[in-house]
C-alpha cells in the first residue's frame, strides 16, 4: 500500500484523488489465528501493531464489535501527558510519551501529536505544594515538569482569569511542556493501517459473544461472524471489560464501568494553545485544530453502559470552565457525548496474563488511557508474546488489589467514582 507523503498527496490531487486505497482491508475472518485481540480500540489496535512489529507475530485478528474506534479512543479529550505521581505510572506513561514523539513517523500516519503543554492550575498554597510534589516526582524520573507563577500563566494564556478576587484565585500551576494533544481518530486509524500493512486482519462488526474453552484454557471466541480459534486471546475492551470477561466465566473484577462526558464548542479562532486543568473541581480544556474547545470534567459517578450522561455534570463542567475563562460565557456548546470508562479500584491500569490460561487482559484505564495507547499496546504485546509482563507493566497486576499493593494516584481507595 502506498506510503503517505506530501508528494503522494500532490500526485493524487493531480489525478482527482482516485488512487487512494482503503486505509485497512476488510477481510473475512479466518478460522483461526495465533492471537485474537478482542476490541478494536486504541489499545487493541496498538497491541496488534506491536505484536507484528516488535515480535513478528502477524497471524493476528483484531475483532471489533462496531466500527473501528467507536469506543473511547474515538471520543476522548485527547490529552497526552506523563505527569504522574507514583513511579510505576510515571515510568509507564513517560515511555508512552516517548513513543508518541515518534508515532507519526512510525505509523506513516500523521496522528497530529502536538506538544502544546499541559498546565494544572493550583488554587491554594497547599495544592501548589501537592503539585510540586508530583512535579518533583516526575523530575526524579527524568520527566519534564515546571512550576509556573500566575504572571507566567497569564502570559501563556491571555484569556485566563488570574484576578486575585476570583472565588478560587490561581496561586500557580504545574506545567509539563512535552505533554499535549493528538488527534484521537487518527490514532485508531493510523494503528489500524499500520497493523494491516503488517498482515493483521482487522475485522469490524464482529462482536465477541463467548469464549471457546478446552478445560480451563481459552482457545478461541464465538462471534457474530462465527467461531474463531486462537492460540491466545487478548481482551482490550475498556468500558466493556466486565461484560466481556463474564462471557469467559469471570464474574467479578475490580472494575466498574462509568460514563464520562465530553464537550466541544463551536469553532472559534485560536484562543488557547495549552491544555489547562482547573484545580478546584474537575475541568480540563484544550482547543482542537479545527477551533472547537474540547473539554470535560468528572465522570457522572454511577455505573453506566449507556455512552451518555446526565445534566448535573454538564452544568458543573460549564461552570468551572467559565471560572477559568469568563469571556467564554457567550460561546456556544456544540455537542456533548459520553464514553464508558473502565474504572479500577485504585485508578491505575491492569495489563496482565490470565486470569485464565490462554487469556490476557488489558483494562482499568479509567479516563486516562488514550495517552497510554502506544505503551499499553507495546507492553501488552510483550506480555502476550512472552507470557510475562514487560518491566513497565509488571506492577499493573490483577492481584495487587487483594494484596494491598495499590497504585493509588488520588488516594481515594476502592471508590471508583472518586478516581
Amino acid at each position, binding site marked *: 500500500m502506498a506510503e503517505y507523503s506530501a508528494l503522494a498527496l500532490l500526485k493524487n490531487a493531480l489525478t482527482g484523488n482516485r488512487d487512494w486505497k482503503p486505509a485497512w482491508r476488510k477481510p473475512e475472518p479466518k478460522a483461526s489465528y495465533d492471537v485474537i485481540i478482542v476490541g478494536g480500540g486504541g489499545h487493541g489496535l496498538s497491541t496488534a501493531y506491536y505484536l507484528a512489529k516488535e515480535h513478528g507475530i502477524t497471524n493476528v485478528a483484531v475483532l471489533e464489535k462496531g466500527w473501528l474506534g467507536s469506543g473511547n479512543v474515538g471520543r476522548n479529550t485527547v490529552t497526552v501527558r506523563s505527569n504522574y505521581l507514583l513511579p510505576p505510572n510515571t515510568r509507564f506513561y513517560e515511555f508512552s510519551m516517548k513513543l508518541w514523539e515518534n508515532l507519526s513517523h512510525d505509523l506513516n500516519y500523521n496522528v497530529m501529536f502536538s506538544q502544546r503543554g499541559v498546565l494544572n492550575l493550583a488554587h491554594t498554597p497547599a495544592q501548589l505544594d501537592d503539585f510540586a510534589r508530583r512535579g518533583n516526582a516526575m523530575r526524579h524520573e527524568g520527566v519534564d515538569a515546571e512550576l509556573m507563577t500566575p504572571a507566567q500563566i497569564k502570559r501563556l494564556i491571555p484569556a485566563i482569569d488570574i484576578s486575585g478576587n476570583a472565588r478560587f484565585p490561581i496561586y500557580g500551576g504545574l506545567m509539563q511542556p512535552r505533554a499535549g494533544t493528538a488527534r484521537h481518530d487518527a490514532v485508531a486509524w493510523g494503528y489500524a493501517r499500520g497493523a494491516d500493512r503488517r498482515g493483521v486482519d482487522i475485522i469490524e462488526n464482529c462482536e465477541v459473544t463467548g469464549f471457546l474453552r478446552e478445560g480451563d484454557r481459552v482457545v478461541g471466541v464465538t462471534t457474530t461472524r462465527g467461531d474463531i480459534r486462537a492460540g491466545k486471546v487478548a481482551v482490550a475492551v475498556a468500558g466493556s471489560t466486565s461484560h466481556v470477561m463474564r462471557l469467559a466465566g469471570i464474574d*467479578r473484577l475490580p472494575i466498574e464501568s462509568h460514563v464520562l462526558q465530553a464537550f466541544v464548542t463551536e469553532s472559534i479562532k485560536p484562543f488557547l494553545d495549552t491544555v489547562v486543568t482547573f484545580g478546584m473541581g474537575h475541568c480540563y480544556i484544550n482547543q482542537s485544530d479545527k477551533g472547537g474547545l474540547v473539554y470535560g470534567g468528572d465522570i457522572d459517578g454511577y455505573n453506566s453502559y449507556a455512552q451518555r450522561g446526565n445534566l448535573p455534570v454538564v452544568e458543573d463542567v460549564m461552570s468551572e470552565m467559565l471560572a477559568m475563562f469568563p469571556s467564554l460565557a457567550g460561546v456556544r456548546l456544540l455537542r456533548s457525548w459520553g464514553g464508558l470508562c473502565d474504572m479500577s479500584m485504585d485508578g491505575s491500569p491492569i495489563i496482565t496474563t490470565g486470569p485464565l490460561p490462554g487469556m490476557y487482559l488489558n483494562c482499568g484505564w479509567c479516563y486516562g488511557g488514550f495517552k497510554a495507547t502506544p505503551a499499553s499496546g507495546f507492553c501488552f504485546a510483550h506480555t502476550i508474546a512472552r507470557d510475562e509482563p514487560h518491566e513497565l507493566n509488571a506492577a499493573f497486576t490483577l492481584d495487587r488489589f487483594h494484596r494491598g499493593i495499590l497504585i493509588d494516584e488520588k488516594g481515594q481507595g476502592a471508590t471508583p467514582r472518586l478516581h
Partner: protein
Amino acid sequence: MLITCPYCGPRDVSEFTYQGDGNRQRPAPATKDLGAWNEYVYDRINPAGDHNEIWQHSSGCRMHIHVVRNTLTHEITDTRPARGGHPASRHHGAKS
C-alpha cells in the same frame, strides 16, 4: 436522571451520592477470611443491565436507599430504604 427517594419522592440525581454496588455483603466484623473482605472491598459484578446499587439522598433526607437501575438505559425500576435490607428478590445483575 430522577431517583425516587422512598421518603422525598422523585428528585434529581444531583441530590444523591452514589454509594456503589449494593450486591456486596460485608463479612461479619470478626471474620478473618481475607478473601471475603477483598471481595467485599474490591470486586464488582458491574453488570450491563439491571444493577442493585446504593445511593444516598445526601442533599435531601440523607437516607441511603437500594436502587435497581438498568445500566444500559438508566431506567430505575425499584427504590427502597437501605435499612429495609437487601432487595432479595432481585437477581444479581445478569444482562436484561
